[in-house]
């Protein structure tokens, strides 16, 4: 159960970082040829922040608060690296995260 919760926290952390990155023009363009609309970027930022927050909640649910905060901060580091390297070598993998999103007209 604990492992499952931590795995979920990790996944949410990666998703959160990826959405926050996709809200930036430069990373969006690595995934799609168009540009995100203002509102899409806002939604992405919101999704990203919510995921990161949910990840923190899961960490707090699993461990004593002193430990959970460390786990979450270190997870953020790991997730950022994963997202950055994915953008370097396999950016198209992230297209599933914005399949629903409309481009700017």
């Amino acid at each position, binding site marked *: 159960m604990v492992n499952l919760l931590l795995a979920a926290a990790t996944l949410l952390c990666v998703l959160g970082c990826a959405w926050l990155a996709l809200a930036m023009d430069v990373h969006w363009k690595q995934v799609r040829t168009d540009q995100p609309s203002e509102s899409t970027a806002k939604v992405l930022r919101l999704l990203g922040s919510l995921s990161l927050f949910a990840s923190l909640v899961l960490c707090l649910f699993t461990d004593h608060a002193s430990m959970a905060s460390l786990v979450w901060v*270190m997870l953020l*580091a790991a997730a950022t*690296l994963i997202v950055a390297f994915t953008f370097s070598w396999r950016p198209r993998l992230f297209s599933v995260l914005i399949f629903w999103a409309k481009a700017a007209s």
Partner: protein
Amino acid sequence: MFQNFRLSMAWLHTWFGLVLGFVLMAVFFFGALSVFDREIDRWAIPESRFEPQPMPSFDTLLKPVFEGMQPSKESIDFARDKVNGPMPERFDTIVTWGAYTTHRDPVLTIFAGYEVPNAKEPDVTVWGNRTIDPRTGVAFPDDQLKIGSGFFYPLHYSLHFHWANLGYWIVGFASLVMLAALVSGVVMHRKIFRELFTFRPKKSTQRSTLDLHNLTGVVALPFHFFFAFTGLVIFAGIYFPVSHTQMKPLHDQHEVIEAQETGLPHDRAGVPAPIASVDAMVVEAQRRWAERGMGGDVGFLTLRHVGDTNGYVSIYRAGTDRIALTGQGIHFKASTGEVLREDLPPTAVESINEFLTGLHLQHFRHWMLRWLYVLGGLAGCVCIATGFIFFVEKRKRQYAKEGSQNGRIVDALAVTTVTGMLLATLGILIANRLLPASLPFGWPGRGDLEEYFFWGTWVVAMAHAFLRSAPVVQGEINPAWREQCLALAVLAPVTVILNWVTTGDHLLKTLGEGYWPVAGLDLSILVGGVLALIAARHLRRREQGAPVQGATDFAGAGVQHG
């Protein structure tokens, strides 16, 4: 001196980072290995490859072992000039006995301190240490080196440079510089958030190296900052030794008053007394912890003034579910077993201190956080290594034009501290598996020889890096990078095979049994070897003048070796 703040920060970052980066590289890498120091010990001492054990019974097992102990020869020699007259044959007045274990220790480390008659200062103590099998009480040979906790870990904070404690001071200064480098790095960076997720391996070497430097520096910024800072907090007593210099009388008086307040005797009474059942005290301590909703094992057990009516027993809980280390001490009168004192809950300041030191020393039970710490440490290594490469890369044209040797020296030192350090690490593991169990009379101890192999390998790697560094003067790559990566790619599987041949523990077996201390290290070494091979191939392509893609990978590949 400089036109603006940013330029002065850049100067600070570049030059302090360059000089102390070589130290920080070792501190980060061996710190990352120290996260799994107990596991590396298992690899290095095959007789200790069994499951972690709880604190054994004091009454039946530990007491006879303690009674058979005496101070070590080194400790007696060390104290010799602090005593008037000759040293006694036997030491009978026991200041303290202690046993310490964690949830990762199959073996138990115990120590005993003895009063020295005729000492010039009253608190001169000589010490004896032993590592025992907690199931039987049998001691492990003294000359076996615990490569993880006894070599890599002290290397992390002292560089094994003990003369005048200089190693501690160098590491302390390097941590301070690390903090300054982080702050100045943030000032120089400008685009922390805009380029947070940016690594462009296909751009020029200089650009992609800087990307990787920024990326690894920024993502692990809280980690880098807190570890440099808490490292300084842990050794504050060494860096500001006021309690043993200017304020020694105050410190000593404080100890006496503290003893009065807590009811734990500061000195012996001089009246002999037997020891009651310590096992019963352990049961009582665990009952009291359980009442506070903190069930758990004993982490640290210590007796003071052994055999005296003032003697007392302190039992501390193993802090496996908290960041703080052992705590919740409960103290008993040794002769009767009555509770003298329960430690009060820590004050706010104590809690913060415990959190900061515990965060760095990590005795908790949380495997994912351990691996995340390794990741943080290795990210630090990549950050420093890419810093070196960027330094040379940025200046190589200018150096080539001037015919300067500066780039050559920096580059050779970078090879030494990146791939050379990894070779030395494999060197000590290989020596550990190849040296015979018993050495001929007159030879140094087995553990000492292993350490010589470590330093010897490193010196050879350094010589190789300098000898091959000529192309750097023309702005080309030092072939030592590739050659040492190849050496790593060969030696990594050799290390794992040697473990198999000498102990029978091959990966299929350790993985099948789920014995992760050995399987994990073997796997990490193999992964490191594969990454070194990939790096060597990239470097070859680049030396042959192909596009520079992947030129930065070698730093990453190199340091991920563990």
